[in-house]
């Protein structure tokens, strides 16, 4: 019995010990989940169709697309004026405006003007606070 419980750890391979153990536990738990919920998994199509039908695709996918675009442009734009944080400021203004307009349900001129003002003042204020006052690195 004693030899069964004894463990010798090879230091060179010790980085794999715990991940292997946790991976094994995850596989076992995953199997248990599949076995105990097989009926629910078999009928999962209806569940996902329900989610997709209720989903506001324009706003969800729009948010994701705008966010990916925002993240992708920040560094190239910031590289034009290095160490100023202007990449963040220049990209944040259209991003805040576009997401704000995306989330609005109607676009009356007054509300759009307010959103435009927020899109300029918000990032401007945040840029000034973080880059100029706190001296934090911005893209």
């Amino acid at each position, binding site marked *: 019995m*004693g030899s069964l*419980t*004894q*463990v*010798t*750890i090879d230091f*060179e391979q*010790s*980085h*794999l*010990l*715990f*991940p292997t153990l*946790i*991976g094994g*536990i*995850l596989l076992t*738990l*995953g199997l*248990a*989940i599949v076995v*105990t919920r097989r009926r629910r998994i078999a009928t999962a199509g209806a569940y996902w169709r329900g*989610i997709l039908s209720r*989903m*506001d695709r324009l*706003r*969800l996918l*729009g*948010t*994701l697309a705008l*966010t*990916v675009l*925002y*993240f992708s442009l*920040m*560094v190239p734009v910031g590289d034009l004026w290095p160490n100023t944080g202007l990449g*963040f400021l220049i990209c*944040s203004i259209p*991003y*805040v*405006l576009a*997401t*704000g*307009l*995306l*989330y*609005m*349900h109607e676009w009356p001129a007054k509300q759009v003007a307010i*959103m435009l003002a*927020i*899109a300029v003042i*918000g*990032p401007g204020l*945040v840029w000034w606070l*973080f880059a100029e006052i*706190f001296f*934090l*690195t*911005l*893209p």
Partner: protein
Amino acid sequence: MEFLSLITPLFLSLVIGGTFVGIIFGAIPGMTATMAVAVCLPLTYSLGLENGMALLLGLYVGGISGGLVPAILLGIPGTPSSITTTFDGYPLAQRGEGEKALRIGICSSFVGGVISLAALYFFAPTLADFAIEFSYVEKFLIILFALTVMAALSSDMLMGIFSGFLGIFVALIGVYDISDGGNGKLRLIPPGTEYWLDSGFSLLPVLIGLFGLAAILDQAELGVPKGQSREDIKIGKGSSFSFSVFKGQFVNLIRSSGIGTFVGILPGVGGSAASILAYSNAKTFSKHPETFGKGEPAGLIASESGNNGLTGGALVPLLSLGIPGDSTTALLIGAFTLQGIQVGPLFIGNNPETWNAMIFAMLVANIAMFVMMYGAIRYFALVVTVPKHVLFPIILMMCVIGAYTINYGIMFDVWTLLIFGVFGWAAVKLGLEIAPFIIGFILGPSAEVYFVKSLESFGDLTIFFTKSWIAGVLWVLILGSLAGSVYMSRRQAKATDADGG
């Protein structure tokens, strides 16, 4: 009393300002105390530990308390911990007694917060002193216990455990750090991503993604519901509030606050469990259980004292063991990390000034919450009308700043925010539980060190059972929590079958 030198006008302004902003976050449906802390985390970078904690603790107390506003006025819980507040608060508001209900909730929140703070002050140092004696074996078992308790109290035990272990697995991505006694080799990294994933995913972008971006994606999926109009708010002019409503509720207040504190101490269990347990206990012990759900002040008292009882309780395991009590306190670990301080059994003893300043900040936050909300509840009620199309873009931008600045400007951290934001949004639909995942993610690297070092030192698996009597007690607790969970889920299944049949 050396900590009094830390109590500066800036410190007090940060606590009070944090509480104010927290109430606003809590009062807007779809925004939570956790999101408030996540968004404001980068601010603490420049503030230092004590001032940063003052801000975050204010946000925490304010955020949990603010949830009662929409719960009562609109029947929509502002935060998950306010679910049971809707049961009796909303019917009261529908009867034109909105202001009275809000004030009952505010007073109960204050009592719950103060009682839990007392528990934190007296219990955390004792637990920390006890935990100092723990070896790697006991520390590993404590983490295992934390995971099993979380899983046991999840809505689905198996998925809860799976989520916790998934969090550990993701945390292991990257190098097995030499500073932790590792061999400095990489693991679990897809080829070609070594440059970015060498140190794995940073904690704070992960947290900001899971609690900031994911919440906004949730709202975007729902079409970003329009804000409420002023006409929707039934605060009830002339509905009189008197402290006499608390007559006969002393036991309920103390019991519910105690339940909230206890649930807070259990690792990874959120405020919704605290308020649900407090509410169901109040109903069970009430002489008139049939009035619950129809505007019974006792239900409102139980719910709000229970969820605010969580605030101090959740800090107990964090500050004494380094294990977060709930999602929001998990974010506080991030603030400590930013300042290069490790929380654990030695924290209170080594940082008595910081510890006392945190207690003082919690006390001021509770008092500020009470004064602001009690005095200006009519104005806070209007917060629910703030349009989300204005708030969400600003929050998204703040999330980016938080992720980018945390490691002095690494763009991969911003992409991490997006990866985990999408993961957090999708995980809920797949039935995964975010709280166990995040606790697993935070504790994963420590669990690895404790496990591997225990085996390297003793060379025998039996050491996890035989090291000390504490190890034995921890195994009893681990198995007890699992057995309790299985028993409860079977009972629930039987009850569901009976209802169905």
